[in-house]
């Protein structure tokens, strides 16, 4: 069985199902439940093989899909009528509830895209702080210096600063999270290749840890640059083999 894992963030089982429905170009109002269920299960199995925690919602959806599939396999009891179409329409389609949920979810997924566009447009315009107008205030003695301002406005201001700081922060976090030094991974890879003569490129990426995947990829690139390894590929999209070039130390 051939399947591919799309390393992407699905926002839940409904999102995954929508993805499958779109990629297999099937009609959302007439989902081929058997085929889609198989793809869905493949995905879940892959996740489990990669030792990822599969969220309970994904498993609930798997059970729902299997239930729908079996209901649809049940033989229809009514006599073969001339107007068969009528019978089917009057019968409740076991997929109905799922289709309704998918369409409802898809609506808001699209709305989120709309919001994203607005957000991007907004991020391209700049403004400035309000001007300090203290100069224009009357200098009378008994004027309340904090008129129309409460302690909670102050708290809100503090919160705004934190939000600003948070907004600046993410750019750094992903880079700082490098817990496996590339040098270490380079040594591991070169030792690995030497012991076996050659390695399939894909074998180096057995780990499910995203950071590990990234570090491995960078390590291979670095090893190629330092000419410690060479890569060969017979045809487009065929397996890439990695060979050690030198026997001396890394």
């Amino acid at each position, binding site marked *: 069985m051939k399947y591919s894992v799309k390393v992407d963030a699905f926002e839940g089982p409904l999102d995954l199902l929508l993805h499958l429905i779109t990629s297999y170009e099937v009609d959302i109002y007439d989902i081929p439940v058997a085929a889609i269920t198989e793809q869905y299960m493949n995905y879940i199995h892959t996740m489990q093989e990669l030792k990822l925690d599969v969220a309970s919602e994904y498993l609930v959806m798997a059970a729902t899909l299997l239930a729908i599939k079996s209901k649809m396999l049940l033989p229809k009891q009514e006599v073969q009528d001339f107007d068969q179409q009528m019978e089917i329409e009057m019968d409740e389609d076991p997929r109905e509830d799922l289709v309704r949920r998918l369409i409802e979810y898809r609506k808001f997924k699209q709305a989120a895209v709309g919001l994203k566009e607005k957000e991007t447009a907004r991020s391209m315009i700049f403004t400035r702080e309000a001007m300090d107008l203290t100069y224009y205030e009357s200098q009378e003695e008994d004027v309340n210096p904090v008129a129309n301002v409460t302690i909670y406005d102050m708290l809100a201001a503090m919160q705004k600063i*934190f939000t600003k700081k948070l907004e600046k922060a993410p750019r750094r976090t992903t880079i700082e999270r490098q817990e496996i030094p590339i040098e270490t991974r380079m040594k591991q890879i070169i030792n690995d290749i030497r012991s076996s003569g050659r390695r399939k490129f894909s074998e180096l990426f057995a780990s499910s840890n995203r950071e590990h995947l990234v570090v491995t990829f960078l390590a291979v690139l670095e090893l190629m640059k330092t000419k410690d390894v060479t890569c060969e590929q017979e045809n487009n999209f065929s397996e890439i083999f990695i060979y050690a070039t030198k026997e001396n130390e890394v």
Partner: protein
Amino acid sequence: MSRSAEHKAVIEGLIFVSGEEGIDKKQIADVLQITVASVEELLVELIQSYKSEERGMEIIEIAGSFQFVTKREHAAYYERLVSAPSHASLSQAALETLAIIAYKQPITRAEIEEVRGVKTEKPLQTLSTKGLITETGRAEGTGRAILYGTTKNFLEHFGLKSLQELPPLPEQVNDQSIEEEADLFFSKFQETME
């Protein structure tokens, strides 16, 4: 200077001093001691003059307040000056949650999770911390679950005049056309089968 030319100049100054906080028509009318209708008229002219000329800023309305902002087509220049992005973008989870709240407010967490099909505690927390949503009350019935709604900050984050400016939900315009497409697909399919 004519009376109305001076008023227009003052409106420009008032919007300018209000900065990112903006100023609404009523406040402008109070300062100028003229009617809101007159303010509106002058505002239209002022906004137009910034649009038509070769200007660096323009006046936009966000959440009912008018403010100056730089023009979008010049964004690249300001990015050179300001290192940090003026607005960090929200994650997909947060955007989906926010979309559901924006269109269906007031809404409970359970109702949001029903639509998304996943737990939504964390995105809700992020959105609250960023001041984009707030508790607007309690649902009737047992449990009296918290109801969520969007804030003024939400309008500001997305540069919206009001909630009415949200693009219509696909359902309201599209559902029919999706069905039509499906019908079309089937009729074609049947044709090829025959």
